[in-house]
């Protein structure tokens, strides 16, 4: 039978997995909109105007989902993880306070102008609002990554009476672990967003709708992916080195290595068993794991068995989550090389096969984000704070029934709202497309009139 700990873990994993998709998409779309609105202001090409108005609709829907699903995360830290809060509240709490102050309020303050301000403010002020919302989403990601990085690699603290007290705030905020992970997450958000843009544009081209608009979006997104994916692979590798330094057992789980060894192989397939403390079978490339994690052929990797079995994560989850993430990254690279080559040869828009493939690329980025986070978070288990606080000690003293009620409600409500209606309305928005904005000039004064004062003064 489940207890409050198991249910709380399931609830947290469920809500955070749902939640992260929306901010990731918002971060990417906000950046895309910033670039496109800048291009529109510079060139005044109406196609850019269509692009921003259409994607703003998708952005608004997504941003709203992120806001409402985010509140759940914050309060769960108290309702379900009170033991954790009691001990490290004064370390992570200030990071959240800074996140609210420096990011959430900026987003909230300017999202109204960005979404509804087209006829209320001038183009420059509107662009400023778009930029500020983008900056807000980006800063917010930094604070959350710094809080999570502290849980992976705690620094700058001392323990007084069982409570963690920060001795060096600079070390916490600028944890060396944070920067590569923050960039990794940002790029993941941009890539996931780009593939949604690629997918929807391909859908329009396949149906011969909004052709000029779709070509603009598709080609821009392919160029963005071509630039970002090699950087992402490089940053991912950097993060891998950090993980190996700070959390060798996580690296061991990722690589499925039980015994400490030099020149460990890169396992492509394996069936790791925590019970038997070995892989039931494995296929690998010699020296691969050593080379990747230490950048040396004979580099030493610490094995899982160097710690007690109860201090090991569930190895197969981490092992496969990581492989799915990396596999998707490589798939993206392959896709974009082919797509760019076809784009340059003027074959992309005519190739139905490639457009169909493009259409189905939409979920890849999000799958990589989720599996990447699975690797990071499940790989850290059984610790909530690596090496210091166990997850089972972090749980609140709540009844199993209360958690069961909230978990069931969440599954139902999230399933209906995010699983059905978000896609229903996204689909509706996509079907309608950018048609509304064919010839409309946004700002009244561009036509020589004053800004709309109807709702003003």
């Amino acid at each position, binding site marked *: 039978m489940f207890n409050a700990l198991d249910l709380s873990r399931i609830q947290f994993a469920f809500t955070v997995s749902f939640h992260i998709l929306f901010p990731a998409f918002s971060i990417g779309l906000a950046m895309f909109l910033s670039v496109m609105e800048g291009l529109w202001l510079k060139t005044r090409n109406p196609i850019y105007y269509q692009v921003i108005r259409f994607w703003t609709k998708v952005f608004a829907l997504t941003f*709203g989902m992120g806001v409402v699903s985010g509140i759940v995360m914050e309060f769960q830290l108290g309702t379900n993880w009170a033991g954790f809060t009691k001990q490290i509240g004064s370390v992570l709490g200030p990071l959240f306070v800074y996140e609210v102050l420096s990011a959430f309020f900026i*987003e909230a303050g300017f999202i109204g102008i960005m979404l509804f301000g087209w006829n209320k403010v001038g183009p420059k002020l509107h662009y400023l609002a778009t930029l500020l919302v983008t900056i807000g989403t980006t800063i917010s990601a930094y604070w959350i990554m710094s809080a999570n990085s502290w849980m992976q690699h705690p620094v700058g603290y001392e323990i007084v009476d069982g409570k963690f007290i920060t001795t060096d705030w600079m070390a916490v905020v600028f944890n060396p672990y944070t920067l590569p992970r923050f960039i990794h997450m940002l790029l993941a958000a941009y890539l996931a967003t780009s593939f949604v843009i690629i997918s929807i544009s391909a859908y329009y081209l396949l149906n011969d709708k909004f052709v000029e608009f779709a070509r603009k979006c598709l080609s821009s997104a392919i160029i963005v992916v071509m630039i970002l994916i090699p950087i992402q692979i490089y940053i991912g590798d950097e993060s891998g080195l950090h993980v190996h330094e700070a959390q060798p057992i996580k690296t061991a789980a990722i690589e499925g290595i039980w015994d400490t060894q030099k020149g460990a192989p890169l396992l492509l397939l394996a069936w790791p068993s925590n019970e038997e403390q070995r892989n039931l079978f494995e296929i690998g490339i010699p020296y691969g794991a050593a080379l990747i994690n230490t950048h040396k052929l004979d580099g030493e990797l610490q094995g899982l068995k160097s710690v007690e079995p109860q201090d090991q994560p569930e190895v197969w989850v981490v092992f496969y989550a990581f492989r799915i993430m990396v596999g998707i990254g490589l798939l993206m690279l392959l896709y974009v090389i082919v797509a760019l080559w076809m784009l340059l040869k003027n074959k992309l828009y005519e190739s139905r096969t490639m457009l169909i493939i493009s259409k189905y690329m939409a979920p890849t980025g999000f799958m990589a984000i989720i599996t990447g986070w699975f690797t990071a978070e499940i790989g850290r288990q059984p610790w909530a704070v690596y090496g210091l606080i166990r997850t089972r000690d972090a749980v609140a003293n709540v009844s199993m029934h209360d958690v069961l009620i909230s978990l069931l409600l969440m599954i139902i*409500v999230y399933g209906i709202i995010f699983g059905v209606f978000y896609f229903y309305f996204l689909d509706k928005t996509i079907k309608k497309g950018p048609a509304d904005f064919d010839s409309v000039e946004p700002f009244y004064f561009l036509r020589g009139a004053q800004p709309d004062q109807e709702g003003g003064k």
Partner: protein
Amino acid sequence: MELALTWLLIIAFIIIMYILLDGFTLGVGLLFPFVKHDSDRDIMVTTVLPVWDGNETWLVFAGAALYGAFPLAFSTLFPIWYLPVMLLIFGLLLRGIAFEFRLKAYQTRYIWDWCLFGGSLMAVIAQGLIIGSFVNGFQFDPQTSEPVANQWISWFGIFCSMALVVAYALLGSARLIKKTSGILQEKFYTISAKLQWLLMLAVLFVGIYSPKESKLQMSYWFDLQHSPWVFLFLVVMVSLFIVHAIALKRRIENLPFLSLVLIFILAYLALVTSGLPYIVPNQITFMQAKADDGALLFMLVGAAILIPILLFYTAYAYKIFGGKTSEKIGY
């Protein structure tokens, strides 16, 4: 001491900002059943659409500040309030998605209208239960020093919920009087005129049914030996209700909202000061719950710089969408 007290004051400020700003937003949702026409509902939603996210952010801020500044309070209060907090979260979730989906829906619009109303109602009821149990104080098992189960719900708490529904609906109505004109505005004048009597009744009942030891108890109100401040408080409160009633009668459109804001602030002050210095009623004082001074100071630097700035640009956003709302907006 000073740092913890400063943070207590900052959090008190954040919570009243939340109550006032999301109060009228929730109130607009609560009034949905009284306004039937789609076009009127569109206008109601339009008055809050550009600002609801910012208003809700104050709640997120309150949570984060309590988490950082008084972690012991956060980790004691929230498990006790597990179910009402979940109810609050679900309510806000339903309301938030209703705001987004309503804009895009045609056939399914009635679902989102119900979600907007139902979500707002759930959130307000949850807040009422939380306030009720806070005023009641908590019981802890003397053996295990764990809080007794299911003390988030009580008759007094249910009563607080009903009072809060009335209070927020009235605040929402006053906001809508400010933001609308013509027949619709007339409608909200009528609604406000009825709701104000209910609110006065609710205030009286809270006074009567508050726990004996509480300073919100009516016997404390008229016990002049405690302090002349209590008497002054009552005089001001009654005057504000009179101002509110006159403003409605004379159709002075900005005054009902302003007088209600002052009534809310006064009632809130009475509520928060009645429990001091406890942050978890009768159990943990704010000094016991505080984080280390380093953390408090680190947060204070950010708060001191950023709160004035955010107040400035929030006010600016309100100004851009200020004035009367006469048609729906979209994107």
